[in-house]
């Protein structure tokens, strides 16, 4: 038995010794990729390596990612801004960005929290799990953000190389990047607008669409409240923005009024300005959108300009922008 274990250990020794350097080698190259994992590496990479360092941080889901242009905000407000929108996730994952931002970057002065009907819901699966690949090993923020969700197990998080099992695409991409092949920048400070026009026949979609009921998750609400308290303690200003949503699509959510009421209550309770664009003229014009909840580049530009001006005029933030 001892001999067997000795030989087995001897066989495994090179694997153990080499697994970490190989893992690092893949991860370091992979995280440089701007196109893989649906273009999510750039903001994660900047967060992890302390390169966000902006006074204005924009939080939210894909709606934030494609609609809030940090450059426009920056130009108008005179402070550097960064868009940390994470596609497909609700506040649970946004909180991971927040933790990384506070721990590894300069503290922002203002957080623009872009809300959508799903912000305070919870999803137990990991959408686009490849976005966490290069960062997951031994990183407590990513481990905590991905725990309790299907997608990665403990071995993936603590044993080098295991999470690359069967990830041929990721390994190929890392290899491609290591050879210095083209890697164009896709998102600028986390933002990327879309030139797409309205997709599909709205009336047809409406006919086949079953109205959804948003289920608010009390754990996420608690986390959201904790986040707001933390911001207050650290002197970080927060603003809620319910970004434009195409007016005819707003009826797709059955309990939308109830969800909006909750956002309003939280805003009032925490004395946070709340800009609701639901009834804004931007939400009325279909040509600003490529689907009911996402604006195209034309719409995003209009929305970002308007948001920048509103922020500039906001009395609470005058001290930030020096006007």
């Amino acid at each position: 038995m001892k001999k067997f274990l000795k030989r087995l250990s001897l066989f495994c020794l090179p694997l153990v010794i080499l697994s970490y350097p190989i893992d690092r080698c893949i991860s370091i190259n992979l995280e440089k990729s701007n196109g893989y994992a649906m273009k999510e590496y750039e903001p994660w990479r900047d967060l992890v390596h302390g390169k966000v360092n902006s006074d204005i941080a924009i939080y939210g889901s894909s709606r934030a990612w494609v609609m809030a242009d940090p450059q426009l905000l920056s130009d108008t407000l005179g402070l550097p801004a960064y868009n940390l929108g994470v596609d497909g996730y609700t506040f649970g994952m946004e909180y991971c960005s927040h933790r990384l931002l506070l721990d590894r970057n300069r503290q922002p002065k203002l957080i623009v929290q872009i809300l959508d009907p799903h912000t305070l819901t919870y999803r137990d699966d990991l959408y686009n799990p490849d976005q966490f690949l290069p960062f997951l090993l031994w990183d407590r923020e990513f481990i905590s953000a991905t725990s309790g969700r299907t997608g990665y197990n403990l071995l993936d998080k603590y044993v080098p190389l295991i999470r690359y099992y069967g990830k041929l695409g990721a390994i190929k991409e890392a290899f491609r990047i290591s050879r210095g092949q083209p890697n164009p920048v896709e998102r600028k400070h986390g933002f990327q607008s879309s030139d797409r026009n309205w997709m599909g026949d709205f009336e047809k979609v409406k006919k086949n669409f079953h109205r959804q009921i948003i289920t608010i998750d009390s754990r996420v609400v608690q986390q959201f409240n904790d986040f707001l308290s933390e911001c207050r303690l650290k002197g970080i200003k927060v603003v809620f923005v319910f970004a434009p949503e195409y007016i005819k699509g707003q009826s797709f959510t059955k309990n939308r009024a109830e969800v909006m009421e909750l956002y309003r209550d939280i805003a009032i309770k925490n004395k946070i300005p709340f800009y609701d664009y639901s009834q804004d003229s931007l939400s009325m014009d279909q040509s600003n959108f490529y689907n009911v909840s996402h604006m195209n580049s034309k719409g995003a530009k209009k929305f970002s300009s308007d948001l920048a001006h509103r922020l500039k005029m906001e009395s609470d933030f005058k001290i930030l922008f020096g006007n």
Partner: protein
Amino acid sequence: MLFNSAGFAIFLPVVFALYWGLSRKSLKLQNGLLLAASYYFYACWDWRFLFVLIFSTLLDYYTGIRIENALKTNHRRFWLWLSIIINAGFLGVFKYYNFFADSFAEASSHLGLSIHPKLLEIVLPVGISFYTFHGLSYVIDIHKSRIRAERNFVDYSLFVSFFPLLVAGPIERATHLLPQLKEKRPFDQAKATDGLRQILWGFFKKVVIADNCAHFANLLFDTHSHSGGSTLVLGAMLFAIQIYGDFSGYSDIALGTARLFGIDLLRNFSHPYFSRNIAEFWRRWHISLSSWFRDYLYIPLGGSKGGTWQKIRNVFIIFLVSGFWHGANWTFIVWGLLHAIYMMPSVLLNRNRRHMEIVAQHRSLPNVPEILSMAVTFSLVCFAWIFFRAENLSHALDYISRMCSGPMAMESTFLHSKMYPFYILIVFFFCIEWIGRRQPYAIASLFLSNVTLRWGFYYLLLAIILVFAALNQQFIYFQF
């Protein structure tokens, strides 16, 4: 708990350590631990299935003793048939009830009768076909006085439920496994090393070969109406490779795992795609099931001892039952029927005992007639697999008609340079299988004389598994 899951990667070392660390001095403890581990392993699917497994175990344990104790032949027969009927009843309810009810309703509708049978909404317990056959062979063997009834309930339960073979075989015989469970099992380094080697090869077959083939085979079977003839031929071949890699890979992992605990299981595959006729194919494919049907159905029916018609009848019965064992679907029955037809030339010409040795036993390469006969056999098998894979008969017939009538040019997707690594892996796999065709499994003695080459080869396999593993594919035979 799947063999290719993180759970199993933790479960196996823990059980191994407890087995050899804490309980190696006591056979009772070893068997008790293996039984507990096996029940835990099974409960990971659905703990409710444990009741079915335990009931089936109790039934055969009890009837086995009653058969042995019975003084009159009638009583022995009564207990045997009781066990057979209840076991078959369980299979019937869980696996076949809906099929029969549906088929009956459909047949009635052809006669102008409208019948709406009540269908059961039940899930098939994993491995029920396998452990039911374990139990059946046990009681039949006692009835035939081939073995004595087992009095130790733990040992008998372990025979039925030993986790490596519990959910997809090999279908063990009491005459082979029970004596091993009754003997002291000291640690055997060579056996354990061999077990690990077989597990490694099994994983390679499953996660690299089978799961990658599955991706393309599923694509082609699901969207066959968009593909041309040669592409669909490729689809059928890929499914043939998939099912072989999947099931023989599973069997290798099962056999290797059992060897880690000092237990030898029956061999289930012996390079079936190197067969030169269908009879040889069936001596090399799912051996434990084929031999089960031979010993408990074909021979009791008279085997090949009667006249020609009896032989033909028995072959058809065997293959129809074998097809039906795989699932309650007409596709499996047609698959069995096709194999029965394929067997006819060998049966009628009394040539089914030809090719008992592996092809090119004493040479490195096959000759031209051998290559041709292997190609013909493989083609026939691939054709039958279309029925096995299809959702229903019309899907299979549609696939075949499209295969014969659609445009013959291969789709560009399958000729793209991105596919080359995949094809190279398949060629590599068959080359290794060919080199190791005289061994119990392909890499059993590969580079045995040179430790550097041997370990280098294992590292290469591990690297290929890490990089090329395809994810999220179940084992095909778990559904049976």
